[in-house]
């Protein structure tokens, strides 16, 4: 049986069920108690699980991320929220140097089964320091499992797996999807990390897209005169290159759309994997589409200019034929 719930409801359900299932799971972050998170993603959890398990922290991402690392090494499973993904940078050392590296430099002794989650992405006019998509920053540091969610179904199943995974996982919901609804099973379920999903079958061209861009890619697919296959990577690091390659072997064409900036974004890496390993299955050069190489501006028309639109994606698809 399924029912329709919103993306943030799916997130809250995932945390709720994991808090219930495993006493070692705790949730902390800024304003996760009564306030319930900026988007409602932690609503109700404090009331149900109490202050030992759901804790407001002082305002410091360094403290949140650093404490999560120690708590995980100490044998509990912290789920820590940063209010915006951009703030991965305010905990720069913890996020780039400590969490992904301590397990490695310890020669595998240190286990850091923590999850940091942080709403990412543009579209609500939040400006240059509250709108970034940071999965290319994080994907750049081996040691993080980097996960995004596109639908409520994804959000719940992937978040639960993130919490259960023994690696540090950075989970990036998208703010623009907060209120989107989708079908989610009544029964408990998880989705595998590290595996891409073919969301729409098609014969002519593979479009790789997640989060908001997935939804725009679907609109674009309806506009173009081609049979589009859409692959949702779900996990950016480590990347399931095989599922993408398999799709390109079938379609012969590749468009990668993502909300990271075009300059050194994820698009280039994904396209490169195919160019290097499956060049002869390509009938056209791959097309990469991302955020223009500018900070995200505030005014809605400017912000939309920075983001890939359904039209830009459609043009990108058509340019390959």
């Amino acid at each position, binding site marked *: 049986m399924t029912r329709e719930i919103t993306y943030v409801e799916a997130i809250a359900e995932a945390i709720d069920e994991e808090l219930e299932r495993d006493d070692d799971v705790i949730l902390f972050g800024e304003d996760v108690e009564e306030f319930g998170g900026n988007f409602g993603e932690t609503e109700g959890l404090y009331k149900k699980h109490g202050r030992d398990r759901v804790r407001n922290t002082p305002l410091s991402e360094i403290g949140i991320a650093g404490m999560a690392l*120690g708590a995980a*090494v100490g044998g509990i499973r912290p789920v820590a929220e940063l209010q915006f993904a951009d703030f991965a940078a305010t905990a720069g*050392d913890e996020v780039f140097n400590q969490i992904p590296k301590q397990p490695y430099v310890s020669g595998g002794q*240190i286990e850091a089964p923590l999850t940091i989650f942080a709403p990412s992405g543009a579209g609500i006019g939040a400006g240059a320091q509250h709108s970034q998509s940071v999965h290319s920053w994080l994907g750049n540091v081996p040691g993080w*499992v980097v996960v995004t969610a596109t639908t409520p179904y994804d959000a719940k199943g992937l978040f639960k797996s993130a919490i259960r995974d023994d690696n540090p996982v950075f989970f990036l919901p998208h703010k623009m999807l907060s209120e989107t609804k989708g079908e989610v099973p009544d029964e408990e379920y998880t989705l595998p990390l*590290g595996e891409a999903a073919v969301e729409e079958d098609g014969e002519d061209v593979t479009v790789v897209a997640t989060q908001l861009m997935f939804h725009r890619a679907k609109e674009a697919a309806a506009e173009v005169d081609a049979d589009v296959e859409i692959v949702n990577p779900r996990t950016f690091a480590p990347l399931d290159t095989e599922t993408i390659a398999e799709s390109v072997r079938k379609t012969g064409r590749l468009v990668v759309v993502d909300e990271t900036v075009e300059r050194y974004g994820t698009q280039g890496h994904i396209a490169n994997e195919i160019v290097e390993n499956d060049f002869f299955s390509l009938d056209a050069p791959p097309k990469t589409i991302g955020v223009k190489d500018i900070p995200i501006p505030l005014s809605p028309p400017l912000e939309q200019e920075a983001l890939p639109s359904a039209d830009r994606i459609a043009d990108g698809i058509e340019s390959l034929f």
Partner: protein
Amino acid sequence: MTQNVSVDDDMARDLLEEMLRIDIFEEETKERFGEGEIPGFVHLSGGHEGSHVGMGAAMRDDDWLAVGGARLIGQYIAKGVPLPDIMAELYGRVGGSNKGHGGQMHVSDIDRKLYGHAATIGSGQNPAVGLGLAEEMKGTDNVAVTTIGDGGTSRGSFHTALVFAAYWDLPVVFVIENNQWAISTPSESLSPDSLSDYGIPHNMPTESIDGSDVEEVYRAVSEAIERARNGEGPSVIESRVVRLVPHFEGDKETYRDEEEYEQLKEEKDPIGNYRERLLENDVVTEAEIEDMITNIESEVEEAVEFARESPEPEPEAAYDHVYRTPLYGQGE
């Protein structure tokens, strides 16, 4: 004037022996580094031995240590990591505590509750707070001790850790080993009278002690740990020591006043002073000390042998330990 000994004779001898162990191990490390056998940098602890050993003695095996500052090896030894494991790690060999993935700045030994070191100075304190939180959540009375140098206290991360530890009254003991230098920058120029004053706005118990006196460190850290165990929250201790060695091997120390340096060596050498004190109080004899030294020398020699004989890691081992696989939900 003869100073009394405040601990029982066995313990006093153990304290001296452990300081000598650090000293002899590090002298050998210096030699081996000089001969090109040890890669990377080497930071030695000369002058900090009393602080390391007093702190180690105050801790239970089940208490966490998160090492900070740049004086590391002595702390690993004080936490009870076997010398061969440390030496082989300095060599980057398979037999090292971290199988060669860590090196001098990252020796960790999770079974012995040594978290290791955050080589970006000052980034180990928030994880220490998390370790304290984990112990509390698990219902133990174990504590987390975390060290930092005077230099590291200038980082926001250090101050954040104080905020977080105080916020939940967590069982964390912050030990600031103030050796008066952050490489060439003097701690004198920092505003607090004592660096432990950084705990005052958080209403934490603070104390500034002579960290070159091993018994004084043992006393102060024991008291702070006791408070933490009893649910009375975090403390900050400034352990005033001197750095009787260069910042790292190869540092020419052009910034130091030679006369003052010589005087400090005379007055603040924790090992020489303690040795005299125990002799004057008839706790040990010269012969016993000589025995200790001989025994430690052979332990250290064995550690070097172990390191030399331990294989270099296979290049493919570089790919180990990045992720624990399978990821959740993937086929087992």
